[in-house]
């Protein structure tokens, strides 16, 4: 199994490196970051040259790639257009984004698996149809529509009704919030609830449908029939035999969707004005802030790959056929 993981690791690093080349070529060709500066007749020539030098714009693209790539390997993500180091910014914004992504991921997994199993056990009944229809509904709804709907038709009416901010719609925390971690919990909940819900609703539905169909497939397996023929309880058959096997493929699907979750975070942060990675990235793109965009793309690629490795590990832990080969 170690060899299996090792092989995946090497392959992942290869994909990551290829992604870095592709992303760099794409971003390096996305336009002149100093365009606005140059258009301003008041900018001294020396200043432009200095900026170009600072961002290595005066070098060829392979050279720039090399400088950037070796920098990243040393943890140096370069500087923003304004000359601020990108690395620390990446991590402060990441902390903000993870505040919605991690809870949303965990919540979505729990909801999707329970609903998928529930729906499968009620196969063909109204509960099943209800769950499936709802999943389709959310699958068809763009994230921004979910986000805006919750913001304007849930949060704002509630806040207006109670004449105070119960569900906040802007930012990840109130700047005025003080005190220790536990004193800030109500404030955090108020800010996190809706964005987290938005993200959950954005990703959970396809997992529900997938989980439901794997449970249904598993139910028809011979080994489930054999388990039932042993005379163990229905619950034990469901949990120990059906669910235990039906969880294996869904881990991969969830891991693969992590990229989608990060994409959803871009939209959610826009709707709820969270100053997280997504907004940072969008602003970076608009300003053609090369190193910011690169840092974001490489960060997402890395996390997605880490999640896929974790899924492989989970797969190996859950499935002895892989564990022992």
């Amino acid at each position, binding site marked *: 199994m170690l060899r299996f993981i090792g092989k995946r690791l090497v392959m992942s690093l290869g994909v990551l490196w290829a992604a870095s080349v592709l992303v760099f070529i794409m971003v390096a060709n996305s336009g002149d970051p100093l365009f606005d500066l140059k258009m301003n007749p008041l900018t001294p020539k020396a200043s432009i040259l200095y900026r170009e030098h600072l961002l290595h714009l005066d070098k060829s693209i392979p050279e720039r790639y090399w400088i950037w790539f070796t920098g990243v390997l040393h943890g140096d993500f370069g500087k923003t257009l304004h000359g601020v180091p990108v690395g620390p910014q990446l991590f402060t914004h990441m902390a903000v984004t993870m505040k919605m992504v991690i809870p949303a991921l965990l919540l979505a997994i729990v909801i999707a698996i329970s609903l998928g199993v529930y729906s499968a056990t009620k196969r063909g009944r109204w509960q099943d149809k209800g769950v499936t229809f709802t999943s*389709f509904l959310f699958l068809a709804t763009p994230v921004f529509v979910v986000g805006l709907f919750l913001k304007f038709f849930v949060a704002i009416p509630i806040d207006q009704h109670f004449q105070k901010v119960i569900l906040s719609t802007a930012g990840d925390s109130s700047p005025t919030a003080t005190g220790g971690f536990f004193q800030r919990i109500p404030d955090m909940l108020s800010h996190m609830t809706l964005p987290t819900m938005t993200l959950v609703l954005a990703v959970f539905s396809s997992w529900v449908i997938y989980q439901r169909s794997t449970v249904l497939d598993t139910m028809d397996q011979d080994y489930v029939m054999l388990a039932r023929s042993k005379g163990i309880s229905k619950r034990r058959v469901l949990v120990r035999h059906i669910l235990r096997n039906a969880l294996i493929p869904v881990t991969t699907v969830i891991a693969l969707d992590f990229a989608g979750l990060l994409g959803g975070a871009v939209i959610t942060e826009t709707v709820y004005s969270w100053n997280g990675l997504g907004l940072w990235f969008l602003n970076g793109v608009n300003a053609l802030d090369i190193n910011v965009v690169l840092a974001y793309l490489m960060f997402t690629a890395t996390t997605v790959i880490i999640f896929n490795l974790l899924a492989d590990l989970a797969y190996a832990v859950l499935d002895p056929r892989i564990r022992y080969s």
Partner: protein
Amino acid sequence: MSINFGQAMSDVPMVDIDNSGLSEEIHGQWRMALRRFRRDRLAMFGLITFLTILLIATIYTFVNPAGWSELTTSFNQPPSWNHLFGTTGSGLDLFSACLKGAQQDVIIAFVVASISMVLGTIAGGVAGYYKGSIDAVVMRFVDLLLVIPLLAILIVLSRIFAGSGNSWWMIAILIGLLSWTYIARLVRAEFLSLRERTFVEAATALGAGGRRIIFKHLVPNAIGTIIVNTTLTVSGAMLLESTLSFLGLGIVPPQVSLGMLVQEGQDSATTQPWLFAFPAGMLLVLILCVFFIGDGLQNALDPRKSRSRA
């Protein structure tokens, strides 16, 4: 048979018989599929609703070609008989704009789906048929596109191409060039299993070339997978395009799309909810319809692999 034609020759009639039997079988399968689809109430509902919206949009924009861009003198009007969906702050008739936007979204989605279908079938087919190093190259590229959120790449790319005015076809091509990997993976998997089947082996033994086998034997057998997933690509494209437009990076004025209308309507969503509700609702209904159609096709064409039914 009294005359022995030798190994290869005696295969000839066998393959022919096999083939005609196959095409007949395929014919019967299509009839069955059509019947199953017709019986599927959600799928039929999706198809009829989708076509109705498109038809109304086409007729309306044909009769009233400038309606969606003409400014009226009524501003911020709630829905009324004159303006079914109300009007915007600048006096735009939202009904016309929504229809035009819907039409635009669907056209883009169809272009994306066509590109994805062609690219995905070719890439997946070649990878699955030839295996080996071609397969490795295609699949690594597919892996690459799975690693970075599609939305993020599209955001960067549409910013790059912003100079060209973000015309709708530019957006469509960009999305199309990035959305084919899903179809490619499925076609590849299908081909990998199909190529082991006897009729393919027989055709190979007869000396049929790769291209002929792919298009004459493999594609017809994988067509169910291709159709279903092309349909799903339509909905995926609508989701992506509307999201880009919502971020101001897709369809931008003076063109119109539903995502853009939602973006413009969001600020007054609490005071003039129709500005948000109609474009968002229309977008949702359209995508939902495509999902229902896709799901119905899946159940009709390949009931074994059906995901949503028992």
